[in-house]
């Protein structure tokens, strides 16, 4: 009795609950919030694209940190026959009490060699390995400490220097679109005037559709969301693929210190929405859709992998069963023409004899009657 009153006084806010019978599960969202803050979050982001497109700079700009302090870049000569590597950087970052374990998966060497046939293979193998590891852990007996290393999102960097997608872009995205959420980006967008950006975006969107590439789709807004939110969501969707600029340096612009790039003819501000879509990308990736990206990875890509795995296992089992049967089916030697003829003759003789026997039987039967 006392407990009820206590809860009532703390959480009764809306007028509705004063009239209705109050139960108390309206607090669930708060409970979820509280528990999740305690547990902490994890997120695995993959960045892929040729070297020199600003991937590391963008990652640094997104997470306001410097993940690539000691990296060594290869020379052109070393890259002629380079194979693709997979490198991981994991950092723990915290903001307003919310902890995030962020893993960035890099793909150095992608698209850099002279012969890039199947250069995405190490990447698809890596993603499958993470799925496999999770699958095994999930199916195991002790599931207390499952580490989720699955890739939740892959930012793919498209160079702004061309007219649209190139064969390597198409092949990469097609190899990965059913394994990971692909978010294509137009990199180094400060080389494009606003008209050129629009033209390139339209072109890339058309080509993505034309080649049947399934990139990450923002979930539809609920119909009861606020108008402002719906408008923002619409703008976001029409803006893809995002044209981004990153920067490791802080410059002084319009009296403020901002992340930007200093040119003789002006200053590009990374967070200025009229300069590039960086803010949109950050909002989408971190502020609004991070959890949806994880959900789609778990509910769609991982489930597809799991179903596919199980199907393969069961079909293999069926095949094995057949070969281990107790009566081995030996292949009969195919008889040659001569023997076949003899067999035919004998068959015919047998038939004739049977007919004669039947006739005789009938005769006997008639005689009986």
């Amino acid at each position, binding site marked *: 009795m006392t407990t009820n009153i206590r809860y009532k006084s703390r959480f009764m806010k809306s007028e509705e609950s004063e009239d209705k019978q109050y139960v108390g599960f309206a607090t669930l969202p708060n409970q979820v919030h509280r528990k999740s803050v305690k547990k902490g979050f994890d997120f695995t982001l993959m960045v892929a694209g*040729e*070297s*020199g*497109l600003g991937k590391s700079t963008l990652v640094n700009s997104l997470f306001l940190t410097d993940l690539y302090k000691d990296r060594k*870049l290869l*020379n*052109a*000569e070393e*890259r*002629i026959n*380079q194979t693709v590597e997979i490198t991981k950087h994991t950092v723990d970052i915290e903001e307003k009490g919310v902890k995030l374990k962020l893993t960035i998966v890099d793909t150095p060497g992608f698209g*850099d*060699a*002279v*012969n*890039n*046939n199947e*250069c995405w293979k190490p990447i698809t193998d890596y993603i499958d390995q993470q799925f496999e590891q999770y699958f095994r852990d999930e199916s195991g007996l002790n599931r207390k400490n499952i580490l989720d290393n699955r890739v939740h999102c892959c930012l793919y960097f498209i*160079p*702004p*220097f*061309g*007219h*649209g*997608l*190139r*064969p*390597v872009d198409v*092949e990469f995205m097609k190899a990965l679109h059913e394994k990971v959420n692909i978010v294509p980006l137009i990199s*180094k967008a*400060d*080389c494009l*005037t*606003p008209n050129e950006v629009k033209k390139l975006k339209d072109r890339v969107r058309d080509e993505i559709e034309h080649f049947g590439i399934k990139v990450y789709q923002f979930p539809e807004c609920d119909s009861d969301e606020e108008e402002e939110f719906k408008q923002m969501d619409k703008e976001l969707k029409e803006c893809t693929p995002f044209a981004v600029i990153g920067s490791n340096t802080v410059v002084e612009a319009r009296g403020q210190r901002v992340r930007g*790039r*200093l*040119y*003789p*003819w*002006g*200053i*590009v*501000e990374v967070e*200025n929405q*009229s*300069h590039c879509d960086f803010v949109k990308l950050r909002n989408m990736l971190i502020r609004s859709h991070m959890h949806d990206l994880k959900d789609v990875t778990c509910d769609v890509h991982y489930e597809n992998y799991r179903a596919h795995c199980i199907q393969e296992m069961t079909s293999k089992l069926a095949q094995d069963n057949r070969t281990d049967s107790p009566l081995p089916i030996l292949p009969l030697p195919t008889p040659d023409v*001569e023997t076949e003829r*003899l067999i035919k*003759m004998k068959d015919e*003789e047998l038939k004739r*004899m049977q007919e004669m026997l039947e006739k*005789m039987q009938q005769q*006997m039967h008639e*005689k009986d009657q």
Partner: protein
Amino acid sequence: GLFQDKNARPLALSGHVGFDSLPDQLVNKSTSQGFCFNILCIGETGIGKSTLMDTLFNTNFENFESSHFEPKVKLRAQTYDLQESNVRLKLTVVNTVGFGDQMNKQESYQHIVDYIDTQFESYLQEELKIKRSLHNYHDSRIHACLYFIAPSGHSLKSLDLVTMKKLDSKVNIIPVIAKADTISKSELHKFKIKIMSELVSNGVQIYQFPIDDETVAKINTAMNGHLPFAVVGSTEEVSIGNKMVKARQYPWGVVQVENENHCDFVKLREMLICVNMEDLREQTHTRHYELYRRCKLEEMGFRDTDPECKPVSLQQTYEEKRQEFVGELQRREEEMRQTFVQRVKEKEAELKDAERELQGKFEQLKRMHAEEKSKLEEKRRSLEEEMSVFSKRKAATELLQAQFFGAQKKKKKKSSS
């Protein structure tokens, strides 16, 4: 050079003779003939080759937007007649199509090398003709190759290195950094140093602006230090102050193509067109073409001196070669004839063997057939015996049965009555 002959003594003139007009005479002649210049532009699709050409020559060449999905690298050549003051220029611009787009780029350089060699070959053929008209010949040899480096800010791409290495002994390579308005000043400085050091450490010989001529030595030396030129191209004009200038308008500022503080376009134009165009043509002819010619003729077996170090004339060598060729032809014919005869013999033997084998099989089958037949006859006879035995028994049984039933009927008749 011309003036190092010790036997000729310098002569002092006591008045004005007038041969100082010789350069003017030469200029007049070449002006009336018109000049010819061929540029090859190598770079990824969309990197700005056509736009830069338009900007350099202040005109609008026919441009096609290429697709990224070309299966192989192609070259597209277009020739234009330009005129400035009273100077006529026949300009040929050759662009790569689809360069850098394929998944496997191992063969990309080959088409370019082949193209350059083909132009050299045409010239060589003309030179070797009996009746030739070199002064009328439209020289299609590539005088300058602009190699467009993508502005990654890190270093050259592997494809760039491989391609330039294959071309540096065939053409004057002038590397440029394309779309340079995406690189900041400090990044550009580091990028240029990295590119040049990679070229040097891999032994790639790019074109150096000549410093042997005093009048241009100073500017050329300075420009050599600015390589590779970071360029921006644009045919669109923006008004700055009260002038219309070629520029690119961004939300954050306007990049002016001809502003030396913004990019090296002016330097490129100066070096390529204003100062060194003639040197580029000369180098192509005296260095790259001569190398090609020498290699080609050596391949064909020509030598300047025979094994005993005596000079050999072209005609001698040619006649020797011809004899060699005819001899080789006859030998090959003889070889073929012999091979043919041999093959016919072999085939005949094979066929005979096959015939014998077939005959043997036939005999065997006949024998088997006869055996089977006799066996079957045996069986038939035994079967007939059995059948007759069976019939006899049947007859006996029937008789017994008839008797039995007869007896039964009698019994029935007796019991019913």
